[in-house]
């Protein structure tokens, strides 16, 4: 029984990791329709931000929070740079965007290798996050609880920002009808840049958090990219609640299948289920027809 509960927590934890990785993408891909293959490298940038900040502040406890903030801006600024220099020139050429951002991703990976070296670097987890907590007989590592909380905080913050702030209203307006938004005086350029900043910044935050459980190397981001796209596609484009449900569903599904079979089989089964699901419901869990976004 405690094993089943353990796997439930594993699934929730995996879901929250997927959600963190996919949240930024649900803005840039989901809302704006930009296929940004360099999204994974923004996650990687967040990981290395955590590493660099930790070198500067030797106390791991403080550096984690500083890294989360700086990681957001590092990811965000990289996103803005990419948007302004390249993506903005090809909004109507999605396939070119895919290729260009894929190339940018490769360049960023090699850059990371040149700066930090190819072997993984070590980001030390804070002392207060080491070890686990026993919940109903299952041991859940504290790092995973932290990531779960962080994912929830990010979702709530993003939902509030989209719903309640002027920027959020402009983002929604541009997504729903770009021309109409422009005629009502909204600068769609500024809004695009803002959306890209937030989306990429969330990737940076995800990167910082992922250093708690995974390795920090040039390919770290790449390993989350496919899963992040899956979450957004299953959730339905333009839907944050869709992404939330899809992430946790995939996480829990994966953890139970993996427990009763193997990691490789679990991946296969999950992919097959996704293919079947998309056959039945190609638009994802929720469609963009609704007026609400969160």
């Amino acid at each position, binding site marked *: 029984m405690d094993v089943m509960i353990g796997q439930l927590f594993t699934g929730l934890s995996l879901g929250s990791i997927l959600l963190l990785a996919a949240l930024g993408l649900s803005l840039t891909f989901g809302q704006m329709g930009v296929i940004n293959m360099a999204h994974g490298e923004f996650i990687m940038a967040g990981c290395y931000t955590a590493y660099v900040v930790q070198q500067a502040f030797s106390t791991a406890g403080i550096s984690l929070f500083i890294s989360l903030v700086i990681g957001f801006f590092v990811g965000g600024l990289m996103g803005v740079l990419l948007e302004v220099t390249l993506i903005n020139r090809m909004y109507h050429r999605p396939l070119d965007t895919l290729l260009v951002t894929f190339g940018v991703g490769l360049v960023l990976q090699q850059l990371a290798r040149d700066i930090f070296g190819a072997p993984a670097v070590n980001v030390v987890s804070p002392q207060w996050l080491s070890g686990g907590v026993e919940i109903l007989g299952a041991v859940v590592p504290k790092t995973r609880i932290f990531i779960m909380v962080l994912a929830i905080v990010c979702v709530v913050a993003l939902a509030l920002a989209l719903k309640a702030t002027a920027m959020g209203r402009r983002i929604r307006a541009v997504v729903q009808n770009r021309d109409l938004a422009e005629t009502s005086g909204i600068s769609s350029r500024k809004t695009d840049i803002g959306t890209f900043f937030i989306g990429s910044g969330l990737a940076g935050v995800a990167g910082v958090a992922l250093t708690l459980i995974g*390795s920090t190397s040039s390919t770290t981001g790449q390993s989350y990219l496919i899963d992040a796209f899956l979450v957004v596609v299953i959730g339905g484009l333009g839907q944050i609640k869709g992404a939330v449900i899809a992430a946790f569903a995939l996480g829990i599904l994966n953890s139970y299948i993996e427990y009763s079979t*193997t990691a490789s089989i679990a991946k296969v089964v999950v992919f097959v289920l996704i293919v079947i699901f998309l056959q039945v419901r190609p638009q994802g869990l929720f469609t963009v027809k609704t007026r609400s976004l969160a």
Partner: protein
Amino acid sequence: MPDSCGSDSPRSKRFLRLMAAPTALAAVGLVLTGCGSKASDTKDSASSAASCVDTSKDTIKIGMLNSLSGTMAISEVTVRDSIALAVEQINAAGGVLGKKIQTVAEDGASTPATFAEKAEKLISSDCVAAVFGGWTSSSRKAMLPVFEDKNSLLYYPVQYEGLEDSKNIFYTGATTNQQIIPALDYLKEKGVKSLYLVGSDYVFPQTANREIKAYAAANGIAIKGEDYTPLGSTDFSTIVNKVRSADADAVFNTLNGDSNVAFFREYTNAGLKAADMPVVSVSIAEEEVGGIGAQNIAGQLTAWNYYETVDSPQNKAFVDAYKAKYGANKPTSDPMEAAYTSVYLWKNTVEKANSFAVGDIQAAADGVTFDAPEGLVTIDGSNHHVTKTARIGEIRSDGLIYTVWDSGKPITPDPYLTSYDWAKDLGK
């Protein structure tokens, strides 16, 4: 390092069939050139194995073929550096047969096909007497037909999955009976009655685990579980949950690369301790410990033939020379030591044969020794592997690995595990 090109997969069976023709050709070439002929006067144009090595000058060329770019670069550059260090030392001491060694460096670019292409170039156009390098098994498998076809020599410095031998390759890293089996012997001696196997999902871990399971069956060790994750996998919570509930005496880890970081973090955070359930790893050396974080892996065990901390005058000289040349913070690891040793083994063989010719070196190789940093190594002429001392190491919080057990004497290589009863069905 072993990887997805094992000798027992269906793909490699096809590969073997494909390679049968060039191998046969190389065999014919061997017969044609004969064993006694000097490399420089082999002008037999009927044989593709004709050598163009120039032994008339006061220098002799060797090739260094390592990945200087791509994903393997960081590991292989250290191997290249070790080879260069050995060459520098040999030249300072007067060279080989009175000739200074001149190196030709080529980049394998982490791509097996490039390794094969560059090997051909080094042999046919640079006319090197021998090539040193290669890391992944797929790079070695890609180069093997080239060396056999051209009848040249490759010195390969990395531990691998065994079940191979070629007249044209000298294997200076460990084969399985010098690394994995001693590790199992050690665990058995420590009273381990059950094991959990965790590995990356490709041929080396699967092959290694087949051997481990055969050993376990013959020695009364229970296998509590066996799990593989896709290469690069970063989520180990389910596997760690499984390991925890299986409650084995020890874990045998054949994970490769970044997965180790995620695995050991999860393992430590889940409260599993080296004291209760030690993890024995076969692909974590000094360099990898840095990325995992010594605090996450301290107390766990590794199986290799060499550690930076090996206490011997030869090793002290090697470590000091390496750090003096490349930087005090650079660790030395098992593959680097094996590469360094391979150059000296070549030198000693050439001097014994009094010739740079491939046939003469092959004929003279048996019994050639070198007092290596890891201890005395001897070439076994029957399979071109070397005797090696097995060492079980414990990773400590300073990031270095300390020997906790060694085999006492060098172990004779047995790439096909023919001397083990329990292993007789593994070749099938």
